[in-house]
């Protein structure tokens, strides 16, 4: 197979190979495929459920942080510190009546939340949690994320359209146009990172960075900082987060494209949104902030196995978990910033939104693309810190 994935990670472990031989012997056919399928299925199941959990926790975090910013208590009744609030909400959602508006287009009403969910959760397949535990290190991972996540736009639009309500319709239109528009600067920023990393694979990009901030792509050169800002703003707009939450602007459109949705359908939308925020924060972390890289190579097998002296299998597993920890830390910090922005900045108008996209972000992103390309050409792809250190070393060498 051409791509590294979670199966290939496990298949290198001796217990996996032993189990495989035993099963082949017992069942009298080559069970490698079946084993791979089972392992992959289990891994995917775990990832999806964990992400759903994280999405639920996202709603909790949102409420808690907003309460903190607004000097309130926030949810604090269900469980310790109200931690189980999202479970209670989930139960409430399931118990609620599933209302289907009479004039709605039933088929589209049905598939719209699903499209959103599919689009978001399909991106999880390439999200680089760690070097081993990623579902797949697809060789066109970044491109895949862009393609699949555009399903969300379709879902939002159909959700708005199928409700047969003017609020929903306006919200859906706003959402779709906003997502399409902001894809341009976001894609241009991502392309710059792809140039720096040298591939469309997330693994390649992450491996091109280091564990320490000066090795991250965000601080690679001055242009990348701007690129990160553009990407982050575009990311906010793509996920319909404040200050770009026009599709679901409460003060104007009741609740935007999901006004007519109740129960689990609404839950799907909400979940998709929070998970998508997590995903794009992860992508930002992977592209700009070193992804799953851990400082000082603490997670590497070389360090854990040879220097610390742990056995092979535990060392690998500990390394992977350290990487996951690094990735999730960065992602959650970004997540916090997103929520913080939501409760800080007022909402934009539609024309301001479009002006920002087409008149500012897109030209800036184009300029950045050219600038980064020139930087790569001039300095052979080295970061500015490297250049500084080199000149410093050269100066030192003269003494």
């Amino acid at each position, binding site marked *: 197979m051409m791509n590294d994935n979670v199966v290939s990670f496990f298949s290198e472990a001796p217990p996996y190979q032993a189990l495989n031989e035993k099963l082949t012997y017992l069942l009298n056919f080559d069970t490698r495929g079946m084993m791979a399928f089972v392992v992959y299925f289990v891994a995917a199941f775990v990832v999806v459920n964990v992400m759903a959990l994280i999405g639920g926790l996202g709603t909790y975090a949102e409420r808690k942080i907003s309460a903190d910013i607004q000097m309130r208590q926030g949810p604090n009744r269900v469980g310790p510190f109200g931690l189980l609030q999202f479970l209670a909400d989930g139960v409430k959602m399931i118990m609620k009546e599933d209302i289907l508006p009479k004039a709605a287009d039933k088929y589209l009403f049905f598939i719209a939340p699903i499209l959103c969910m599919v689009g978001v959760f399909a991106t999880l397949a390439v999200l680089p949690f760690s070097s081993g535990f990623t579902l797949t290190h697809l*060789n066109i991972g970044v491109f895949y994320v862009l*393609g699949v996540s555009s399903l969300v736009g379709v879902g939002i639009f159909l959700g708005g*359209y199928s409700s047969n309500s003017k609020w929903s319709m306006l919200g859906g239109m706003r959402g*779709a146009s906003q997502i399409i528009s902001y894809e341009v600067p976001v894609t241009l920023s991502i392309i710059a990172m792809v140039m720096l990393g040298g591939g469309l694979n997330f693994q390649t990009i992450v491996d091109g960075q280091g564990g320490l901030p000066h090795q991250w792509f965000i601080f690679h050169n001055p242009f990348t900082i701007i690129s990160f800002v553009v990407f982050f703003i575009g990311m906010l707009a793509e996920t319909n987060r404040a200050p770009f939450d026009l599709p679901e602007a409460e003060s104007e459109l009741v609740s935007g494209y999901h006004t007519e949705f109740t129960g689990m359908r609404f839950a799907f939308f909400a979940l998709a949104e929070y998970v998508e925020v997590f995903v794009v924060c992860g992508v930002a972390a992977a592209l700009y902030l070193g992804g799953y890289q851990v400082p000082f190579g603490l997670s590497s097998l070389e360090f854990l196995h040879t220097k610390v002296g742990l056995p092979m299998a535990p060392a690998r597993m500990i390394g992977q978990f350290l990487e996951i920890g690094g990735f999730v830390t960065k992602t959650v910090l970004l997540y916090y910033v997103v929520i913080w922005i939501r409760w800080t900045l007022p909402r934009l108008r539609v024309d301001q939104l479009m002006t920002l996209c087409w008149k500012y972000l897109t030209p800036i992103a184009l300029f950045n693309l050219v600038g980064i390309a020139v930087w790569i050409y001039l300095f052979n792809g080295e970061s500015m810190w490297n250049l500084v250190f080199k000149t410093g070393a050269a100066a030192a060498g003269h003494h």
Partner: protein
Amino acid sequence: MFDNFLFLSSAALTVCGALAVVLAPNLMHACTYLLTTLIGVSGLYVTLSADFLAATQLVVYVGGVVILMLFAIMLTGGNDNKSVNKFGIEKVAPMGNAKTFTLAGFSALIMALVILKIIANVNKATPKTELPPYETTVEKIGELLITDHVLAFEISSVLLLGALIGAALIARPRRREE
């Protein structure tokens, strides 16, 4: 096994979606069926070791064309299937009636016969060789685009720019200043 599974599911998506596009009585629904077809074709590209093509298919069609179609349908109220126009003059229903479907079926049948006549010989004509292994195509396509096919690449970029400007120009409503 996994290849076969992927192929079969993609083929099913594609063909079913296409048939649904033909038969759907609702244009909006037909558009979503087209979406499934496009995703299925994308899957077929994957089985053909055309990974970049598959992703491009997703980005361009799902992210662009289908949403454009949906927008256009919504803006033109194209979802109605009334068989009279705004002046009350009777005409063929926009989504077709029995007559048009008969005509279409006939034409499709003729076309099918011809095409079947062509592809009946393909299996015999193509040599049975060992298929190359799956490998990444992005780098090679990139190289080809800026070496062998650079002219087509530039022309298509100019075409896209022209299409962009032209579409914006055409669709802009003209202000009536009297």
